[in-house]
């Protein structure tokens, strides 16, 4: 238990990567969006995908935690399992805290009418536009999901290098293509459309959470035979 915490502390020692940059990037993206909204206002309010930048960054962070930070981590006398879990739990903790931060910012955005320029930066259409606890939960799950997904990418790269990475991406695309083809051949687009129309945000959170857990387990299985 103490070791898990120490693994988390190890990552956090890199304050730039784990504290300064995420919020720095978010702030930068936000400012750009505010300026643009101020200059070019649109009547219904701007729904930007600006928040996506933070998730993309976490993907990269996750990958780095399993590539750049791994060799020294394992040198410190922890098993791969403990290293992975410690890292995974770090982002769970950070995700909870940051999710709360995003929720607060969303409330502020709502209160100021989009920061006075009608910007919907923290209010992402539909999935993060509801009650505060829903926003919190959604942000939390998404933050963890992207980081854990990134961890898996990092591990695939470690074990199988660029070739493996490409194969990993190709495999996922293949799965998506197969799904699309299957639905098409079964002429079930109507059902799919119905599904997405009727699914509630909480249910979607549940699906995302399940996906996150699956990604986490995938990474855990991959790290078992990683050598440094």
């Amino acid at each position: 238990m103490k070791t898990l915490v120490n693994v988390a502390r190890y990552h956090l020692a890199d304050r730039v990567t784990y504290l300064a940059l995420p919020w720095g990037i978010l702030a930068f993206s936000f400012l750009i969006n505010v300026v643009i909204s101020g200059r070019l206002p649109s009547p219904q309010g701007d729904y930007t995908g600006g928040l996506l930048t933070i998730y993309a960054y976490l993907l990269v962070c996750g990958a780095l935690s399993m590539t750049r930070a791994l060799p020294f981590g394992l040198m410190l006398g922890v098993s791969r399992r403990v290293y992975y879990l410690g890292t995974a739990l770090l982002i769970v903790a950070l995700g909870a805290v940051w999710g709360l931060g995003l929720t607060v910012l969303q409330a502020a955005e709502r209160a100021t009418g989009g920061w006075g320029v009608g910007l919907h930066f923290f209010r992402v259409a539909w999935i993060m536009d509801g009650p505060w606890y829903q926003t919190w939960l959604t942000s939390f799950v998404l933050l963890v999901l992207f980081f854990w997904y990134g961890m898996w990418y990092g591990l695939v790269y470690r074990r199988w290098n660029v070739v493996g990475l490409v194969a990993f991406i190709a495999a996922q695309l293949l799965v998506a293509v197969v799904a699309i083809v299957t639905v098409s051949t079964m002429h079930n687009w109507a059902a799919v459309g119905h599904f997405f129309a009727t699914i509630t945000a909480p249910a979607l959170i549940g699906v995302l959470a399940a996906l996150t857990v699956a990604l986490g387990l995938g990474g855990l299985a991959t790290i078992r035979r990683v050598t440094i």
Partner: protein
Amino acid sequence: MTPTISATALGRRYRDQVALDNVSLTVEPDSITGLLGRNGAGKTTLMRIVTGQEFPTAGDVRVFGEVPAENDAVLRRMVFVREEQTYPDLRVGHVIQVASWFYPNWSEELAQQLLADFELPLRRRIKKLSRGMRSAVGIVIGLAARAELTLFDEPYAGLDAVARQLFYDRLLADFAAHPRTVVLSTHLIDEVADLLEHVVILDRGRVVLDAPADDVRGTAMTVSGPVTAVEEFVAGRPVWHRQRLASRASVTVTGPLDNAAQARARALHLRLEPLSLQQLLVHAAGTSADEKVSA
């Protein structure tokens, strides 16, 4: 007493090469063992398997009686300082601090002393350090951890002779004050020969020598002098090497030579020179893989 490390028929093969082949050895607690051999002999692979960083393809290894791979209880009792260690992008001081959290026997006092001895800049980022200084960081961690099993794999890349001697002195001093099991792999053999209690030589993935250092010293002697006298003296002894120049000869034979033999050599005006550990290694590594050097 349970050996600290116990390898049985350990093997590791890669697609195009055999790194370790049928390696069986034990390392006793509270000793300094030298793991010697040429580059590519398998020293690093062996140490990586012992520390769970690599997996064997044959045989098995036990550390403190248990399988080391993915075994947190065992892993926390070890520290492995590698030749080229990748560090995260942190300052030297942070790296040392992080290490201190993980080792139960960590000595902050020793760490500070070593940091001063090696003149390491705490505030500089580790990736900006010279190769020698990076090696010094590894040594600081390796020694201050005071781990029950401490492994050094050629830890002095880039360190000059003065810094190396500092390492040996500090290692010896701390080992004497806080005994632990040390395995040191090196090809600067003559520098560490006197530190070693036990010697293991690997060649092409196999163990060619595994003996107490005292036995190894004097394993072979070079006898030089006039040809006839030399040949008369070495008659009946296993010869390792023969060299001639006109009427002088230099023959290396299996030792040790007892007092009587030494006296006889003196009487014949022959010069006796024992083979150093380094020369022994050169010979052992040159020997066919099937022959074991008997000590």
